[in-house]
């Protein structure tokens, strides 16, 4: 794995990179050495400076200090297009391609093979097919991009970046929305590129993936380089310790799921045609019910239906034995339900409002506009949650969109906790957030359960579900296929339930 010696000249060597934003230092004298043919992981919590560093390298940001050497010559990328020309290609988590164009058009956009002033479509498709075969994709390049899964689109984006740039490939959280097999597909592509001598910077929150594919890692914390290491020589624990700067307890403690109390919410045959098959579940006070399943299995749809985001067309919801009507989120909030949605940016934060207003929003909405919460009280609530959840921010007045993902998630949790809910639904509460915030949110879930709240948590991280769920409901193809309780709850059992064909 490591035929790389650090005496080689790095392909990309960034030294002394600093970037100031008014009021903060985003990067402080950061160094990144990328050797030929290596996969180099860039690690750090949210807000550590990974994205800022990438943006400085690709010219999206103008750095305030430092030198970038590419193949031994100093370069000065002024824009992302410029850095692409120099040989640095970047692929982001959200695929930056045009969904309405064909695969081939996406691959060759801006440099299509031409004949007599027109695009030579046949030749383009043939070339695209040849290029994609190198990446292990046997697909029809004349199909529109949307005909293929996100993973395939991701590979197409990589192919485009490599064909255009070809020295350095930066992958910014490429696996965040991929399932296990898709990650393997992507890793296969990365290994091929590595063999071709390409140097790859790999950013992800998944440490298992880092260790599976990367040779070395640079670890950032609070805008500084904490260390550079050969991953074969360190353990996950070492890396996490460097990222967090403190010893982290074993991430998954012994299961402790407490004793459930009275039944709080019963859902009977709730469903909506074309969205999710009718399902029933009941949730007691002081228990966490986990929702497991692959992407698209109906986890989010279940949560949305119970919270009234989408009104159900059959079935009923009972609260403490009484039927209640939930046709929109306002009804749900009135019954002390709360929902932290999966897509923080679209469904969660109100980006331009201050963190303070965002925290108070649901409580104020429930009180109605006629009864404003006094300013001193707002301040008190916001401050107490900022402290309790350790939300890192410069000021409660800053717009919430400026916070890092983990801190946005905590602020949204604060928004709902401020309404003092009886029933809290969390949809992917730990997606795309860093290890530290991750552990804190899991601890919070356990704390809330111990305090007697009823929780429904949808998550794609099985270890996490196993750690805190009293029961786990497994979904497949928008249907409930299995309910696990007690000692049955293990990652293996969940995977088996997801994978097994339905009996009867």
């Amino acid at each position, binding site marked *: 794995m490591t035929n790389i010696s*650090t005496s080689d000249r790095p392909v990309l060597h960034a030294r002394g990179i*600093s970037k*100031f934003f*008014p*009021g*903060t*230092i985003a990067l*402080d*004298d950061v160094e990144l050495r990328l050797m030929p043919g290596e996969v180099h992981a860039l690690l750090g919590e949210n*807000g550590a400076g990974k994205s800022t560093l990438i943006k400085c390298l690709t010219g999206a940001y103008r750095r305030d200090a430092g030198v970038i050497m590419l193949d031994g010559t100093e370069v000065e990328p002024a824009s992302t297009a410029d850095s692409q020309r120099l040989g640095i290609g970047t692929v982001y988590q959200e695929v930056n391609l045009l969904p309405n164009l064909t695969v081939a058009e996406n691959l060759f956009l801006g440099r299509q093979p031409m004949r007599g002033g027109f695009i030579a479509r046949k030749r383009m498709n043939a070339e695209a097919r040849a290029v994609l075969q190198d990446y292990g994709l046997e697909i029809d390049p004349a199909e529109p991009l949307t005909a293929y899964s996100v993973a395939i689109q991701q590979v197409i984006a990589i192919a485009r970046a490599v064909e255009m740039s070809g020295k350095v490939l930066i992958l910014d959280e490429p696996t965040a929305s991929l399932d296990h097999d898709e990650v393997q597909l992507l890793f296969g592509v990365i290994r091929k590129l590595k063999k071709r001598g390409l140097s790859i910077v790999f950013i992800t929150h998944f440490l298992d993936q880092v260790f599976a594919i990367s040779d070395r890692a640079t670890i950032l914390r*609070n805008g*500084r*380089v*904490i*260390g*550079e*290491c*050969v991953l074969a020589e360190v353990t996950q624990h070492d890396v996490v310790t*460097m990222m967090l700067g403190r010893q982290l307890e074993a991430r998954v403690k012994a299961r402790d799921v407490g004793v459930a109390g009275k039944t709080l919410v019963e859902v009977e045959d709730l469903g909506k045609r074309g969205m999710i098959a009718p399902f029933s579940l009941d949730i007691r006070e002081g228990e966490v019910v986990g929702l497991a399943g692959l992407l698209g299995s109906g986890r989010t749809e279940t949560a949305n239906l119970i*919270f009234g*985001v989408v009104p159900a067309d059959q079935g009923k919801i009972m609260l403490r034995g009484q039927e209640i009507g939930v046709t*929109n*989120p*306002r009804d749900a*909030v*009135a019954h002390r339900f709360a*929902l932290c*949605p999966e897509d923080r940016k*679209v*469904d*969660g*934060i*109100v*980006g*331009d*409002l201050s963190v303070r*207003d965002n925290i108070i*929003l*649901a409580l*104020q*909405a*429930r*009180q*109605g*506009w*006629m*009864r*404003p919460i006094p*300013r001193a009280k707002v*301040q008190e609530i916001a*401050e107490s949650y*900022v402290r309790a959840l350790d*939300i*890192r*921010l*410069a*000021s*409660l*007045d800053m717009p919430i969109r400026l916070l890092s993902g983990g801190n946005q998630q905590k602020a949204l949790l604060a*928004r709902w906790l401020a309404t003092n809910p009886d029933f809290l639904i969390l949809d992917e509460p730990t997606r795309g957030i860093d290890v530290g915030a991750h552990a804190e949110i899991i601890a919070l879930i356990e704390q809330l359960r111990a305090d007697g709240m009823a929780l429904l948590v949808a998550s794609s991280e099985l270890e996490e579900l196993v750690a805190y769920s009293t029961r786990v409901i497994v979904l497949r193809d928008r249907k409930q296929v299995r309910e696990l309780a007690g000692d049955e709850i293990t990652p293996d059992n969940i995977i088996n339930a997801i994978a097994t064909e339905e009996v009867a």
Partner: protein
Amino acid sequence: MTQPTVGPRPSVFKRIMPQLVILAVALALNVAVFPEFFHIDFRNGRLFGNLIDVLNRGAPVALLCIGMTLVIATKGIDLSVGAVMAIAGAVAAATVVDGHSWGTALLAALLAGGLCGLWNGFLVAVLRIQPIVATLVLMVAGRGIAQLVTEGKILTFDNAGLINLGAGTIAGVPTPILIWLALGALVTFGVRRTALGMLIEAIGINERSSRLAGINSRVLLVCVYLVSGLCAALAGVIVAADIKGADANNAGLWLELDAILAVVIGGNSLLGGRFSIVASLLGALIIQSINSVILLSGLPPEFNLVIKALLILGILVIQSPRIGNYIYMLRASGPQPQPDPLVRQRPEKEAAQ
């Protein structure tokens, strides 16, 4: 980046600073072309002077921009306000011509404006038609409705009470000035002392999130269009009272554009979100001051629209994001936070590599 600091509320003064500066410049231009500009007389129980004229003539746009600010804060727009002015003026005139009192006429006009607002709100909030299209309906149809009310002619009246709303004075101050000041204060107070302001902003920034947080966005949307309709009705009554007649074709013509412009000059984003009614009102005064400069300069009237366009272009350029960023960078390039030398040593881990 660690501990939250409890800053003071971002000051209102800082928010409206650019508008105050621009207004000061516009007023200074007035003085440059007409040194007597700030001179105010008290004759026949009424204040006279160019400054009073600016405040008085600016009343219709000032009234419109109060409602328009709220509508725009929800990411909407209300193109119908000019036409609603015509309807309200026509209704008020027809009511007094029928022999009713000026109070009844005012109420009838407000009712008409309120209905127009509810209609717009219904189209936008319930049927989910894009605001620009939804309000375009009434923009076009409204003048027709007003003509039906006036039966196609300029409906004149001599009801002293109604005329007083547009041309009268209270304690020497022209009534329109008092009306827009009072309404501006009332609405500002109303949205800022309740939670309305924040909820409106939340809808304008991210309606999905707001709905998921339990905000009744539909009712709030209807409300802002209702307020806009009521503001337009008041403006329409004032304009009709001022000329002692309702002109269905020309009352409030193109004023919706001036109102939108006032909101934009007030630094409010057309994309919705954070808003300031005070800043919009300053925007309305800026527009009126520019009108005044052109009049006082004695230039041939053919130049008016071109000069106005140039001045407004200048204001918008100053407020554009590019220039704004530039000014921000100039300010931010002051003393930078310096790295803390004590924490720069790396852990041994790396040194060992």
